Every structure is written in structure tokens, then in C-alpha cells.
């Protein structure tokens, strides 16, 4: 089975989804990411979905679960690069992804993570 690679970049993990996601790959990614956050003590996760041509309710839920799981393990998740047609379709489908932090692209997502890290340094950790 194909697996989605998880790359470590300093305090953050970067996931770029570049394959057509079937349900098993999506579930495997959730498990792999939780394990990697624990192993690396990552403070943030950047999930790049710019290559995804479709997000249905299953993949949408997977993204929400990844974000929630990472949060519990002490890492913020920013979902970046959603194609406009995917965003339009997702909202019409009924998934607003209101609880998921998003950014237009990897650069802005990285800036969000870095900024939230900086604001936490010097203040008490959550």
C-alpha cells in the first residue's frame, strides 16, 4: 500500500499529499502522523493539499481528525493550498472545516506556525 511521507522541518512536520487518496491511505496517514508527532515532539504540522483535486466528506473528516489529534499531542495544524474548486465544493457538500486552520499556501502556513510558536515562547506553554 502507498504511504504519504511525513518530512521533519525543524519544529514542524510537513505533509504533502501527492497521490490519489483512497480511504486506507487516509487512515494510515492519521496513524503515521500521530506516531511522528510523538517521536519528534513537533510543534506544528503543515498539511499541503494543493495536489488534491477533490475532498469528499471522508477526506474532509480525515483532515479534521488529523488536526484534532495533532492538537491533543501539542502540535498546531495548518492546512494549505486547497484548490478554489475544492473549497467551493466542500462548502456546498456541507463541510465548512470551521475548526481547521487554513492558509493559502505553504509559505503563509509556515508563517502562521512560526508566528504562533514565537508568541508562545516567553509566555507559558499551553
Amino acid at each position, binding site marked *: 500500500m502507498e504511504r504519504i511521507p511525513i518530512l521533519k522541518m525543524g519544529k514542524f512536520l510537513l505533509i504533502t499529499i501527492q497521490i490519489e487518496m483512497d480511504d486506507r491511505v487516509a487512515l494510515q496517514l492519521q496513524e503515521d502522523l500521530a506516531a511522528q508527532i510523538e517521536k519528534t515532539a513537533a510543534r506544528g504540522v503543515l498539511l499541503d493539499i494543493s495536489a488534491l483535486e477533490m475532498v*469528499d466528506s471522508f477526506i474532509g473528516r480525515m483532515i479534521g481528525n488529523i488536526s484534532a489529534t495533532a492538537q491533543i499531542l501539542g502540535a498546531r495544524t495548518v492546512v494549505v493550498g486547497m484548490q478554489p474548486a475544492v473549497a467551493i465544493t466542500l462548502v456546498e*457538500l*456541507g463541510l465548512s472545516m470551521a475548526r481547521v486552520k487554513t492558509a493559502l499556501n505553504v509559505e503563509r502556513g509556515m508563517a502562521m506556525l512560526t508566528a504562533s510558536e514565537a508568541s508562545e515562547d516567553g509566555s507559558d506553554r499551553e
Partner: protein
Amino acid sequence: MAATGSRSLPLTSEQDIVLARQAIRRAAQQIGFGIVDQTKIVTAASELTRNALLYGGGGTLEWDVVAENGRQGLRLTVIDHGPGIEDLTLAMKDGYTTGTGLGMGLPGAKRLVNEFKISSGPGAGTTVVVTRWK
């Protein structure tokens, strides 16, 4: 409504959902759907084929290019021979599920297409026919 060149794909495993999405993407591109229309019909196909697998134990996806009053559309028919749906009104409600899903599949897919027909009954399986016009 004239239909030409019906094609079909069996739905027996989760991998078939991916194949269904790819086939419907190609069909939508071939008749010149824009990117938003493509994404909507592909997403509807993904929801409906997953439902057929999860709740109907598998089935078939058929698709046709249809024409009416000079416009073209893509019609999908998803058939399963599972236990059927007892209460269709309930099944069409947002957030209702008998399984572990979000309960988004049927009502969500309906919002992504222009025409939506469902027929089902206990022991009779479920057939969903949806059309998106260009």
C-alpha cells in the same frame, strides 16, 4: 433526454472509489465541464460510490452523457443490492447515519448536482440517479 454511450464500473472495494472518481473526472472533462462542475460531480460520485460500498455491500456505477434542449450533462447511476434504506426522508437529512460516517453522503451529494433521484426499500437495494448539467 437522449443518452449516449453508457459505461460502467463495478464497486467491490475501496480502491474502486478512486477508480470511479478518475472515470467521472475524465468523462466530465471530455464533455467540457469547467473545473468547479468537474469537482462537484466527481465529489458526488465519491460520496455515492462509498455509500454503495459501505451500506450496500458494493454495486455498480454507470455513467452516461445526456443531452436535453441543446445542453449536455453527465448522469450517474449508482446501484447496490444491499439491505436498502428503510426511511428515505431520514436518510436524506444532514447528519443522519446508520453507520460510522458523518451522514453527509446523500444530502451532500444532492447539493452537488442538478437532479437527484433515489429509490430504495427494505430488501430492495438502493439506486441513486444524479445529473449535473453543463
